[in-house]
Each structure stands twice: as structure tokens, then as C-alpha cells.
């Protein structure tokens, strides 16, 4: 287990870096591709964990993550981008410099307050994953488009899974399977929901939706 810790830290740092990029890119396709990369990092982390613990279950979990988070979910999201091209906003509320400043503040807060509490776990990577979680929350808040909110939730879940692995919380196959299944259902529902929103309002941009246009579905 000891030798994999540096690797897990590398994966955690990768997740954080990808989260930063997600906050900076302005194209929805890039956002999805970054999520794909993040999910791939998580898959590799799970493979490493299964190897070190000798758990076949975790290997299955990694495989499942690969199928759902690396292949299915991004394919689904890219399909939606193609379908609703022009209606999916990629704009953000804060410009890039301000966004970077906010992210810096969030990271500083995490290291000032959360890191000391996590010191007992002997892993500095936990703090970076906490910063990653807050960064994805910031992404969802800052972006106007619905797609960024979906990707934000999925990215948040990636950070939570790796954080749990780092903190030594039991990571059984059943748990990972349930989480991945949950994600699959979540993506499907979100896609369906987007379709309904588009049909109802003629737009998917969460910021421009007018509640007054709401009518009962026939």
C-alpha cells in the first residue's frame, strides 16, 4: 500500500488540475473531454488500488468506471452537445482572472482549515481533493449552462470517490457498483430532463429560463 501512495497523490493532483482546466475552458466539448480525462485518472487509481489490495471486486469497479464514466457518460454528453448545439451556453458569470482568484481563495481556505484536520490521515492529497470538490461546486455555480452543471456533479463524484479511497474508507465492489449505477441513471435522467426543458422553454441555459413559461405537459 505504501508504494502506491505517491501514485494516488499524482492522480489526486491530476484531478485537481483537470478541475482547474474545466473552470477555464470555454467550449462545452472541451469540458466533456476534460471530464473524460478525469474519469480515466480515477479508473487508473482504482486499478492501482485493486492491485495493491488484491481485490478482484475493485478491478471490476474500475472496469465499470471505465465503461460508464469514460465511455458512456462522455458519449452521451457529446451527443447532447451535437443535438442542442447553439442552445447550450458555455458562458460564465465571472471572467477568467476573477474565476482564478476565486479558485485560489477556495484552495487557500481548504489548506488553511481542512488540511490540519486531515493531517491525522497522513495524506496531503486529501486536502487537494477537498479543494477539487469545492472547485467543482464553484464550476457549477459560476457557469450559466446546464451542461456545466451536469459535468460539475459528475466531476464532484470523481473527487469524492478518490477522496474516500485515500482516507481509507472501505471501498467495496458493491459500493462502487452502486455509485456507478447511480451515475448512469443520473446521466440518463439529466439527459431526459434537458430534452423536456428544451421542449418546454426552447432553451437549456439555466440562467435564461423563464418560470412564467411553465405549462402542464400534455
Amino acid at each position, binding site marked *: 500500500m505504501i508504494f502506491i501512495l505517491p501514485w494516488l497523490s499524482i492522480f489526486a493532483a491530476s484531478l485537481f488540475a483537470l478541475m482547474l482546466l474545466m473552470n477555464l475552458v470555454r467550449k462545452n466539448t472541451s469540458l466533456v473531454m476534460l471530464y473524460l480525462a478525469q474519469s480515466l485518472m480515477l479508473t487508473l487509481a482504482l486499478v492501482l488500488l485493486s492491485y495493491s489490495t488484491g481485490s478482484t471486486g475493485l478491478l471490476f469497479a474500475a472496469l465499470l468506471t471505465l465503461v460508464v464514466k469514460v465511455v458512456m457518460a462522455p458519449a452521451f454528453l457529446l451527443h447532447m452537445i451535437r443535438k442542442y448545439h447553439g442552445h447550450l451556453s458555455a458562458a460564465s458569470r465571472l471572467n477568467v482572472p476573477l474565476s482564478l482568484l476565486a479558485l485560489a481563495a477556495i484552495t487557500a*481556505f481548504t489548506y488553511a482549515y481542512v488540511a490540519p484536520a486531515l493531517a491525522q490521515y497522513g495524506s496531503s492529497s486529501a486536502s487537494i481533493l477537498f479543494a477539487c470538490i469545492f472547485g467543482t461546486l464553484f464550476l457549477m*455555480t459560476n457557469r450559466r449552462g446546464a451542461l456545466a452543471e451536469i459535468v460539475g456533479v459528475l466531476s464532484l463524484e470523481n473527487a469524492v470517490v478518490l477522496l474516500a479511497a485515500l482516507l481509507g474508507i472501505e471501498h467495496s465492489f458493491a459500493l462502487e457498483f452502486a455509485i456507478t449505477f447511480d451515475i448512469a441513471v443520473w446521466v440518463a435522467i439529466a439527459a431526459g430532463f434537458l430534452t423536456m426543458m428544451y421542449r418546454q422553454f426552447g432553451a437549456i441555459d439555466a440562467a435564461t429560463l423563464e418560470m412564467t413559461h411553465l405549462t402542464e405537459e400534455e
Partner: protein
Amino acid sequence: MVDFIAQFGLFAIFAFFTGGAALSLIYSAYGAERESWILSHLFAALASLCGLLLAGTVLFASGPLSFHLPFSLGIGPDILRFQIDTLAAFFIAAISIVGIAASLFGIQYGKHFLGSYRLGGFGFFYNLFIASMILVVIANNSFLFLLAWEGMAIASYFLVIFERHEAKNISAGMLYLLISQLGAAFLFAAFLILYALTGSWDFDTIRASAGEMPLLVQNIVLALALLGFSSKAGIIPLHIWLPEAHPAAPSHVSALMSGVMIKTGIFMLIRFFVDFFPTAGISWGLIIIVLGAVSSLLGVLYALSEHDIKRLLAFHSVENIGIIFLGLGASITFFSAAMPALGTLALIAALYHTINHALFKALLFLSAGSVVATTGTRNMEEYGGLIKKLPYTAFFFLIGAVAISGLPPFNGFVSEWMTFQSLFAGIGTLPIIGKITFLVGASSLAFTGGLAAACFVKAFGAIFLARPRHEHAHAHESGFLSLAGMGLLAALCALFGVAASAITPIVTRVAESLRAASDIAVPSAPLQSLGGSSLSMSGVAIAVVFGVALCGILVWIIAGRRKIVVSRTWDCGAPLTSRMEITATGFSRSIIMVFRGLLQPSVQTDVEYHDVETRYFTKKKKVELSLTDMYHAYLYSPAITLVEHSARQARRIQTGNLSTYLLYIFLTTLLLLFWALQ
């Protein structure tokens, strides 16, 4: 036999309840509504019979029983802990007796609903309701208790809204559920505080560590418990659900709700104030006495103004819970003032009145149900002369009325007499604040007794005597099983009165068991103690029977030989009709006017003249007497307005923008984290 009942009694109770609930649903699903109804009530009666046997075994033979089922229910270990001590057995006995009578009555009562409603659900919730009540009193774990408490509330809610075609019943059910959940919120808070301090949900641990808790925490827990359990008991001003929910529910459910469900609140108050926190403090006792005095007096005054028979009985529940509070408050005061013998005596009075009220109130609700079922109305102004068509029901109602009025030789007299004794003892022994409070309690009880008698003179007279004010040509007596249910309760009302000397020692044992460690010198016979005043109920019974017989003989001697002369009425007179009778409203009007400062009545008079121009001769005069609902006007309406205003203010944060909501979540997470890591 004792071992067998002790071992399998509880299993049998829940097996019958489960069977009743399941069969009710199954038969109803196949369209056999009548069978569904009968089986559900039959199984409930059998389960209640098992409950009575188990309670008797604990009270007379085996002593306290404890059970522990090793299932976690997915919540935590040791949740399913049960204890049937003598107090629990006493309440199981009360629940079971009323359960048997109500179920017997209900078997034939169901025909009124055939074809109008699906009856399977009713049978299911009826069994669940009684089972939950038993579970409430035997739970020895906070978690299990709260599950049972909520189960009881939900089951009774569905029974209240059973006749859902009437919109009023739905709103009554909603009000009941609302108050119920408000009370439950206080209880959750109380148990969470206890868990935080003891680290356990178990009642045994709470009992053992209660004395070591800081005084402030003890008082907070007791205040939360008092609020939570009083809302179920129906103490003023948390009583507002009672006069709405009791009339809405079918009559035998009203009997169970008023007779025993509200007593589960009393049961838990005894647990908290006498069992868990025996050093609660004199002030808690005095507060409870004041609450009891206000509830008993106002309850009976509101009952006087009612002409809806079931609302009238509901208000009498408020009054009687007030009387029980007087006994309980006196008990807590005495225990806190290191007067354990008097404390036990007052507790005996409270417990005795608890079971007495269960008996006579259930009897009155069943009798009222019999009347309502056959006449189709709850309005007493539309009854009159029903004694000729419902003689047995009238007789049973009369027994209940005499008992609730606290008149000898029935049971209500005994417990009210003991409550008086306790209060008088406090006036003689306590410091000045205590003296004044006990004096207020005793005065209130004296007023209450007189007013209750007046109220039931009105009720019995308006329902059964005089001439019919409306034609109820099809009115008829209830069936045998319904009469058997009423007869059982009537017999017990008489038994608990006449044989009080034999029953008091049993209640004494229950009261003593809660304070076993305090080495109490309890009077061996509370009916014959305290400053030389003594009472022989069998002597009183003989005197009453002898007096009634003597009056009958005198009437027969004086009036019996007179011939009935039929002749024309005097000139300008008119033949006697029901319009010349005093109405229920008219009867109570004078008493209400005496208390008009308190009740704020409003009188609306509608007069119709023969000649509108001259207005000399009245053709028709209609007087409507109504009371201002002070609790709505001064307490609930302002509270609702405040909540609505707050809700309008809170809506400002509801922008409809998803990103804003995410920002709220984000900021909350950061704040919580900041707070947690400080």
C-alpha cells in the same frame, strides 16, 4: 398457565393484530367487504383479550417482564427492547378493555359504511392503531417508542379521515396530524438531548443517568416532554384537534382515541416526571396543576356550549385530562417536597381517574355512536324522546353520564374524591405558593364537577327525554354485540365504583412500583385515610340504591293512584309540542352567561313576526349561541400569520435560478466545514 401467558402473551397479541390487519386487506381485495370488517374487529378483540390476560398476569402473578429481540432493524443494535412493568401493564389493561368493547361494538357498526367506503384499509389501520398503542407503553427504547408513537399517530389519522367524502373530516384529520407532528417534534428533541447526554436510546440508561444531568438540561427535557405529550393528551391550549378529530372518526374509533390514545400522553408524562426524573422539582408539579385546573374548567365550559354530541364529549376529554393533571401535578409536587406518601396517594388518584375516564368516556362515545348511527345526525337539538326507541342505549348513556359527573356510586366519584383528598392535603401542608396553587386546583375541580353534572343533565335530557324534536321514524336500538360492548363498559363503571376498596390496592401497587426505592409509608387503603375522612363505596352504593328506591316508592304512593284526566287546555293555551321544550342551547345559556367574561359568547337572534308592521306577535324566534374561539383568535391565528410572513420573506431567496441554489449549497458547505473545524 401464568408462565405460558408471560412467555407467549405478547406474541399472541401481535399475532392477532397482524392477522386482523392482513385478513382485512385480503378479504377486501377480493370484494368481501363485510367479512373484512368483521374479521378485522374480531381479531382486534381477540388481541385485546390477550392483552388483558397479559396485563393481569403481570399485575397479579409474574411481576415485570422484559423482552429483547436481537434485530437491529437496520437502525442500530438493541432497538427491540420491551418492558412490561406494572405501570405498563396497567395501561395495557386499560387499552385492552376499551379495545374489546370498541371492537365488539364495531362489528355491527360497520354496516353503515358498507357500499360507501372500502373497508379493508380501515381494518388494517384499526389493528395497527391498537397494536401501536400497546407498543407505545411497552417500548423500553426511545427509538422503538418513537416508531410506535408515530405509527399510532398515522394509523389514527387514517381512521379519522375514513369518512373522506366529507371535506370537514379531511381538514379535521389534517389538523390532528399537524398538532400530532408538532408534539412529536418536541419529543424528538427531548430524546435527542437525552441521547446526547447518555449515549443511549435505552430507557433503563436514561432512568439511571437522569439524576446526574445538569439541572438546566433536565428542565429543558421536561419542558419538551410536557409540550410533546400534552399535545397528545389534549391539554389546553394544545387541545384544538380533539373537538375536530373525535367527531370525524367513526364512534368506536373515537372511543379508543378519547378513552385510551390520549392516555398514552399521560403514561409518558408519568414515565418522565415520576419515573425518569423523580426529582423534577415542585415548580413542575405546580405548573401541571395550573394546566390541569385551566383545562378542566374551560373544557367543561366549552362542552356546555356544544350541541354536537361528539364535540361535547371531546371537550369533556379535555376536562378529564385536566383532572388527571391535577392528580399528577399534586403527585410531582409532593414527591419533590419529600412527602412520598402523599405523592403516591395523588398518583393513585391520577391513575385511577385515567382508567375511569377510559371506561366512562368510551361508554359515552359508543352510546353516542349508537344514537348518531340510527338518527344520522350529531346535533342534539334534533333528538329528544329517544329513550323509547333506544332504551338500553339510554340506560348505558345514563351510567356513563353519572360516572363522568363524579356522582356515586360510580367510578368517577372515587377518583375525583381521591383527587380532592390529595389537593386538600396539599393546602394543609405545603408552603404558601403551593397552598394557593392547590386551592386553585381544588376550586377548579369543584366547579368542574358541578358543571359536568349540569352538562350531562342537558345532554341526557336533550337526547333521550321529553318529546322528539325531529321525527326519527326509523330509529332503532343497536344490535346485540354493540350493546354487549356498551354493557361491558357500563358494568365496569359500576364495578370500579362499588368495588373501589378492592381495586385501589391494585392501583396502589402500580404507583408504589415507580417509587420502590424511596421507602414510602403509603396508606394501606387510600379511601380510608387522610385526616380521618373515610369512605366505604359499598355503603355509598347501598345508600344510593336505597335512596332511589325510596324516592320511587314515594312517587308511586303520592302520584301512582292519581287518575290521568284528559281535557281541553285552558283558553288561549295551546297543545304541548316539542317546540315548548327547553333546548340544549337554552339549558346551557344561563350558565354560559355567568362565565361570559371568560367564554366571550355571541348571541344571534332571528325573530319572525306574524305581522311585520306591528311586531306584536312573534311567530318564530331562533337564537344561536356561539363562543369565540379564543385559541384560534389569540394564539393560532397570530402564529399562522407570523409563519406566513416568514415564509413570504424566505421566498426572496427562491430566485428560480439553479446556479443561485448551487451557490447556497456551496456557501453552506463551506460554512459548515469552517464551523466544524474550528
